[in-house]
């Protein structure tokens, strides 16, 4: 049962990492990148490393999302394609 659970969590890490790459809106991409840290933290607990899991939960999923959102609020919310079009002009 634990093997199946670990496999499913690893598939979840893969899916959320792909979503963080492919999503158009940046807020959804940032939060989806935080989900990678969440699933990795649960995987560390299953692999019996609770201290690593605690650090991953604090830094990888908690602080990184807040810092990314703070940086995003300093820039413009704009899809990637429009910026490339403006660069062509």
């Amino acid at each position, binding site marked *: 049962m634990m093997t199946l*659970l670990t496999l499913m969590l690893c598939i979840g890490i893969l899916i959320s990492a792909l979503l963080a790459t492919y999503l158009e809106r940046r807020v*959804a991409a940032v*939060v989806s990148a935080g989900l990678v840290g*969440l699933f990795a933290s649960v995987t560390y*607990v299953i692999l019996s490393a609770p201290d690593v899991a605690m650090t991953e939960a604090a830094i990888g999923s908690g602080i990184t999302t*807040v810092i990314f*959102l703070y940086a995003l609020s300093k820039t413009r919310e704009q899809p990637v394609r429009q910026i490339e079009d403006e660069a062509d002009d």
Partner: protein
Amino acid sequence: MADFILNLAVIIIMIAIALGVYRLVKGPTVVDRIIAIDLLTLVSIALIALIAHITSRFIYIDVALVYGLLSFLSVLAVARYLERGL
């Protein structure tokens, strides 16, 4: 009997993770995805507590505690960003 109930709880949590990931992939708007991620956070906290009970190592409860505090902060920051900027 107790093993059966614990296995059933793990299966229910796996179904919940699958449904949350489905809504995360499918969700048309940003708010759907953020709610799905909040759901996945709650399900993961329950999963960590369940693993702590199954393996009888109660130091794992601390991980769930830290995660519960920090995920609340994270979702709060996202909600404030969506409303009027951080």
